[in-house]
């Protein structure tokens, strides 16, 4: 049985369709990355899955419970970490954890809180107000509070926004450790390196699910060809290349240019005489990266926020 199995999910706010016919399947123990630009509907989709929003259309189950009728049961077995820190800043770390432990009726309450504090390494900071914590610590506290009741599914909404690389690394190690223990995780993110740490990814843009699969599958299915251009005065080369038919993306990567196109023949034709036109420039076939694919998606999907 899949932990998440939804299809046709649609949500409108006023006359804007924020989530449009989204389907998603997540198996037990998987870490699925949920990617997409700002305002693409990631948060709304996650909220529909944990019963915080009612879908206008579509149905599905989360942990075997119907998302429309059994949201209370879903809430009890899901850990949801919101995008913005949503614990009480005027409560101490210990009080926040006690509050959560009591709401989920975890017994013995004191033991659960003490264990969680111990795991967090926050036992000595128990009486510190949560509002005085740094971004990284707030995120750790929020995660700890979300998993205190041993949920079967963890929904994380951009958990690492504004967190330094070391804390992010530790966070992801923790996620993998939890998944190894059988927890299923759906995590939304902007970061490509994080996407690559997921078992599978789903890419949503302007409410529409555009791609889903492993990173390799998504890259492969995008059907993009990439060439790497090296040499002097690359900015002039880039301006030249952008005008050529078949070239869809020109992006500088350090001392190289990534030139991407979906039509391999056209791209090869476009690049054929580059080495002749620009002195000292070399063109070589390259690997298409996940980022190239996402930029391609974003360029191709219509922005429904602008209308």
């Amino acid at each position, binding site marked *: 049985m899949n932990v998440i199995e939804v299809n046709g999910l649609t949500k409108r706010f006023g006359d804007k369709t924020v989530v449009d016919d989204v389907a998603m399947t997540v198996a037990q123990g998987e870490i699925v990355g949920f990617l997409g630009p700002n305002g693409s509907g990631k948060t709304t989709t996650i909220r529909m899955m944990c019963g915080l*929003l*009612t879908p206008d259309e579509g149905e599905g189950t989360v942990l075997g419970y119907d998302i429309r009728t059994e949201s209370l049961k879903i809430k009890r077995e899901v850990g949801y970490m919101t995008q913005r820190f*949503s614990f009480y800043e005027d409560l101490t770390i210990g009080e926040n954890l006690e509050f959560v432990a009591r*709401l*989920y*009726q975890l017994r013995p309450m004191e033991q659960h809180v003490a264990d969680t504090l111990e795991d967090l390494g926050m036992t000595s900071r128990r009486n510190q107000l949560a509002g005085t914590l740094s971004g990284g610590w707030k995120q750790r506290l929020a995660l700890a509070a979300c998993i205190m009741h041993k949920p079967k599914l963890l929904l994380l909404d951009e958990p690492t926004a504004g967190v330094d690389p070391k804390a992010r690394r530790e966070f992801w190690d923790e996620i993998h450790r939890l998944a190894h223990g059988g927890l299923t995780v759906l995590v939304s993110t902007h970061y490509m390196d994080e996407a690559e740490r997921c078992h599978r990814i789903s890419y949503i843009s302007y409410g529409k699910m555009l791609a889903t699969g492993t990173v390799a599958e998504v890259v492969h299915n995008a059907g993009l060809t990439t060439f790497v251009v090296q040499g002097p005065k690359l900015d002039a080369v880039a301006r030249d290349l952008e005008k050529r038919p078949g070239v869809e993306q020109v992006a500088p990567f350090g001392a190289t240019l990534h030139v991407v196109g979906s039509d391999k023949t056209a791209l090869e034709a476009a690049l054929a005489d580059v080495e002749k036109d620009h002195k000292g420039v070399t063109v070589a076939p390259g690997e298409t990266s996940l980022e190239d694919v996402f930029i391609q998606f974003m360029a191709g999907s219509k922005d429904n926020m602008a209308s």
Partner: protein
Amino acid sequence: MNTFFSPARLNALLAKEFIQMRRDRVTFAMMLGVPLMLLILFGFAINNDPKRLPAALLAMSNDQYSRAMVTALENTGYYRFDHIAESEAEAERLLERGTVSFVVTIPADFGTRVARGDQPQILIDADATDPSVASGAISTLGTVASQALLRAQGKQAAAAENARSQLDVVVHRRYNPEGISQYNIVPGLLGVILQMTMVMMTAMALTRETERGTMENLLAMPASPVEIMFGKVLPYAGVGAVQVVVVLIAAKLLFFVPFIGGMTLLLSSILIFVLGLVLLGYSISTVSRTQMQAMQLTFFFFLPSILLSGFMFPYRGMPGWAQTLGEIFPLTHFLRVVRAVMLKGATLPAVAGEIVWLIGFVVLFAGMALARFRRTLD
């Protein structure tokens, strides 16, 4: 597991709310300090029966009769002659500026007419822009003036005779024989103060969670709407209870308001009223998206309820439709109960009708709050 209501979860919410209240020192101090301040301020300030009002005397003659008139007017306690006008124009100016509330004109031929027994006249110009200021002072005039004249003429016997022969109207000023404003104002203030703090504080309670983003988290956890409601409402009702004790003690020690009726009846009706108020505040909280909106809605409710409840102006003096409108405010019914119990010593049967109204409000507001509560973020 019970999804509808669990005492353990309610306890979690209550504990959290109390901690937050305790941390927010300023608000907490306001919840206890403001009632006392308002009570002392308004309790001493508001007076429905103003006395010793400034008056100007324009006396064209200075004979014993005029002097007797002035003394008699001063003795009523309503007039304080602190201006002697030299001319009509000056008197007019004093009244116009509001320096005096009355101008008493005694014509030049006043003494002569009295001596002749030829229907003497005096003129009193009253500033009646505020009718209640003038009414007390004017109502005492008739008898006072004629008695004073007879005495001045040395007709003590006639004065007594005159008083006897008149229709004897016996007035008992029941429940508040000395007409002390505070007896009426202080119990009313209890209602107004409770209404203000309770409704406003609770109206902010849920919108604060929405504004701070904690609502999303709260809704994602297994707390039921009933638990969330009581978790918010009960702590504020507790604060209300403390306010009640403070105000009642102050009423007794500072204003000597009589507590004639039963304490149990008084306290239980106050409790029902407070419960209604916090639930109303909570309902406001469920419909407003920001604390600002909650505040505005509270004030929208607040002003008419003070003006139409009979706290400031006599309820019976309002036209029928306004009285009907007044009935929809809990304060109206609370004022009747609390004044009846404290001042008249009313027992349960006498105020049962009003208490049923108050209970009705509790049920109505609780229903409204639960119906309006959004379990989702839609």
